[in-house]
């Protein structure tokens, strides 16, 4: 399975959850598959999906899922100790690890070589870290949502992309409807 197939299977499970989605193709794929006000699409700023998601999780009570990539986590490695030391049990970080920088032409990442992101997350102090294969990701996510425990999921999948349109929504519209959805979810 490639990332877009992982996302397609995840949609029924995450559709009604607050989701912060990584820059580039992941956001474009989620936007095409299941555009929701509960989705915050990153149009820039590689690496910060987990940081933004953690901020949302710390600020309110509803569950927040950050969808990140191996390349993006490598870009912002400092996020893992911050997450580990600021436990938000309403936060799930899903790292879709296809071993490549998908949005820029599938250049290989170190996560596809010697570096284990799950091992790094554990070493940083994250207590619940689950590495799974793409086929099992939806079940793992369902369990993580039910667990009420901060969870880091590293989903190993194949690299590869599908053709998707860019997101043309205005960033302020994306942000405003996401904030409205958060307020409604918390009332």
């Amino acid at each position, binding site marked *: 399975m490639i990332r877009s197939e992982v996302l397609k299977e995840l949609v029924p499970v995450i559709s009604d959850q607050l989701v*912060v989605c990584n820059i580039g193709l992941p956001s474009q794929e989620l936007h095409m598959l299941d555009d929701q006000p509960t989705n915050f699409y990153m149009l820039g700023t590689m690496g910060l999906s987990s940081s*933004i998601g*953690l*901020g949302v999780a710390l600020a309110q009570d509803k569950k927040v899922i950050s969808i990140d990539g191996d390349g993006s986590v490598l870009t912002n490695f*400092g996020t893992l100790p911050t997450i580990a030391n600021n436990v938000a049990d309403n936060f799930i970080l899903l790292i879709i690890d296809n071993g490549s920088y998908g949005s820029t032409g599938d250049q290989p990442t170190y996560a596809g070589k010697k570096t284990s992101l799950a091992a790094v997350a554990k070493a940083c102090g994250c207590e619940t870290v689950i590495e799974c294969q793409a086929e099992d990701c939806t079940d793992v996510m369902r369990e993580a949502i039910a667990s009420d425990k901060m969870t880091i999921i590293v989903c190993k999948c194949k690299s590869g992309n599908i053709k998707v349109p860019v997101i043309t929504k205005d960033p302020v519209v994306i942000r405003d409807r996401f904030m409205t959805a958060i307020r409604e979810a918390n009332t």
Partner: protein
Amino acid sequence: MDIDKKIVADFVNNDIELVTTVPCKQLAGVIDEIDACKDIYHIPSNKEDEGIGICAGAFMGGKRSAIIMQNTAIGVTVNTLVTLTQFYRMPLPMLISYRGELKEPVACQVEMAVHTKALLNQLHIPTYHFHQQSDAEELDTILKYTFMCNKPVAILTDATFWGGYGDQ
């Protein structure tokens, strides 16, 4: 009132509930106050762009946030300020120690200091420079302005403001 306590009191009075920090020697006192403040969740960041991401998330989650960092961070965070904070129109008070100004003992700090205001100007970030402690009387108004206009706003605080570098 002690300047560190005054800054934190202004944060609290403006409903800032989450503050992320990347340390600087000059900011040590205010960071201690933030950490001790029961009304503020203090979340140290490993890098300033990470901190700005956390602030963006907290804002969207309904909590006002702020970042405390050194001016070298302006070099680190240009992309994040532009493509996240500004692009999505989010407020972000940035309390910044302005290293490399008068009384600076470390030459390398001057290299970034000479670019700091130029970069902030280029990014169209409203910038205030506290040189004397009495300048901090404006902090409350600056915070209100920041949350009114939904922009990142820089508050540069130099060595004279903080009382120098001791024996250095």
